[in-house]
């Protein structure tokens, strides 16, 4: 479903020298599978999520991004979103003055228009919002607020998963979705993510710790270090990393 081939990318600095961060990432996530990427801070995990989403702060210098058989490397972020890529941000952005549901309805309909589908009606959308909010313990008061404004870190993460439920993407990238969550919130968020698991949907879960993976039960775990995938294994690999840390990959930087 998602195939990353020999991906090299660097930061587009506003000034100074470009800094290479991804140095040949190879990864395949078939439909229906959940893959985790673990790795030490600074290994390029978050950069990978931004590059997948099409952030213009990074420049792809080599390799390819293939999604459902098509090269999406040259597409704008909104075009990738319309094809079904969803990024749950590590730091969700506050947008004062734009109510959450207004924003999501605009986003959903923009995606639908881009795919040549009929727009969703307001009553249907609100009904769906109520159902999804209930799953995540989100109050109607929270939905009325501007996007992410005034929410705690944990609430923002919960709203990210709410947005994913509303937009029903084909592929989710979860960037450090567990950071800032206490154990109860982690469970709620994980249940929301698990509700999105389906045979025709893929997921890439980027995390530093293993605890989110206890709930999400990935099919495959990759270890990233110094801008490359350095090891791939089953769910047990996450447990090994949790007990042994990332020291053994420190040499990969060379």
């Amino acid at each position, binding site marked *: 479903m998602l195939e990353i081939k020999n991906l090299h990318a660097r930061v587009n600095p506003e000034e100074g020298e470009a800094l290479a961060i991804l140095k040949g990432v190879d990864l395949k996530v078939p439909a229906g599978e959940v893959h985790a990427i673990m790795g030490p801070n600074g290994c390029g995990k978050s950069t990978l999520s931004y590059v997948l989403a099409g*952030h213009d702060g990074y420049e792809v210098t080599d390799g390819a991004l293939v999604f459902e058989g098509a090269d999406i490397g040259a597409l704008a972020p909104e075009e990738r979103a319309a094809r079904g890529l969803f990024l749950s941000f590590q730091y969700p*952005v506050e947008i004062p003055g734009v109510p959450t549901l207004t924003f999501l309805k605009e986003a959903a309909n*923009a995606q639908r228009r881009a795919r040549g589908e009929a727009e969703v009606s307001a009553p249907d959308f609100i009904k769906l919002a109520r159902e999804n909010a209930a799953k995540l313990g989100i109050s109607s008061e929270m939905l009325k607020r501007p996007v992410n404004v005034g929410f705690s870190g944990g609430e923002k993460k919960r709203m990210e998963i709410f*947005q994913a439920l509303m937009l029903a993407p084909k592929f989710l990238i979860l960037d450090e979705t567990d950071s800032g969550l206490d154990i109860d919130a982690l469970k709620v968020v994980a249940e929301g993510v698990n509700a999105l698991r389906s045979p025709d949907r893929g997921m890439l879960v980027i995390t530093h710790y293993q605890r989110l993976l206890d709930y999400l039960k990935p099919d495959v775990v990759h270890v990233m270090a110094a801008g490359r995938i350095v090891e791939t294994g089953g769910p047990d690999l996450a447990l090994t990393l949790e007990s042994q840390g990332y020291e053994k990959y420190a040499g990969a930087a060379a």
Partner: protein
Amino acid sequence: MTLPVKLSAFEAALAEQLPAGDLRAELEGRGLPHRRVEDWKWSDLRTALARLPAEAGELTLTMSRAPDARRPLMGAPDQIMARLAAALGGQAQVYDLHNGETVTLDASVAAGAGHGAVVVRARDGVHAVVRERYSAAPGAMLNLNVHYAISPRAHLTRIIEQDASPDAVIVVTTTMDLSQRAHAAQTTLGFGAKLARLETNISHGGQGASLEMNGAYLVGEGLHLDQTGIVRHTGPGGTTRELFKGAAAHGGRGVFQGKIHVERAAQKTDAKMNHRGLLLDGRSEIDAKPELEIYADDVVCAHGNALGAMDAAALFYMRQRGLSEPRARALLTRSFLAEPLERLSDEAVREALMARLQTALEGMS
């Protein structure tokens, strides 16, 4: 001593219409306000008008009802544009507001230079709304002098819409006497002109009087809007709240000059002024000069001013969710500009202004 300036054809035509006297001598001696006059340093009226056809025109005032009186405007303020409007605009239309009424005044000029004057009185205890709208056709100038006299315990709501008027010049000079215990709330939504200047001079009597002055502006390519507001607190215990927010697109220019002057007698004045500007493009410009001048020692006064570009992180976030870049920018701009308009208590008016803003944003993207 300075030598008389060389008048443009436009200035010479204006001077010819004036009777001999101080005003004509001043115009012939100094010309119209220009960038070397401190109060006009960002709005070079002289240059903007020099390129307009030098012909007399007519200011059309369309009003929701007939005025209560017409009389020459006496005691015109010292600003030259206001004096020209009074001298060349014929008799002022005088309104004595009835309790509970809404008066609408549409001022426009179709061709040439049109001048006019309006006087609005809100007598003791009267609550009323005045909605003003200004526009000028390409090549035209609108020059209006507006005077408000607000008596004790009166409550005035003033709403101003200034239509985008490319290749035109609009100057509206307002003086407002806000009596003790009176309340005035002014909200402006402006889109600029080749040069538009909305100037408001308020004498604030204090003693429980309160003033709200809010404005939103959006200036597109080739459009310039100058909002200059001078509030002079003359009596003790007055309140002023100002919030102006504006966005300038590619080739647009916003100017905000705000001054709060607190006289020695105006103890316990509580005044706050805030201006925030959004630069939508590397070729947009906003100039701002907020000032406090305080001669009383027991006051609470504050001003804030901030200019910035669109939040890139918010833009990327919205695009990741599927919004096109122009749509994301329009939504962010709209939410930025909504705040001053949201302070309007009348929901229908608030929504009408938001709808105008929305239409303007859609036209830009």
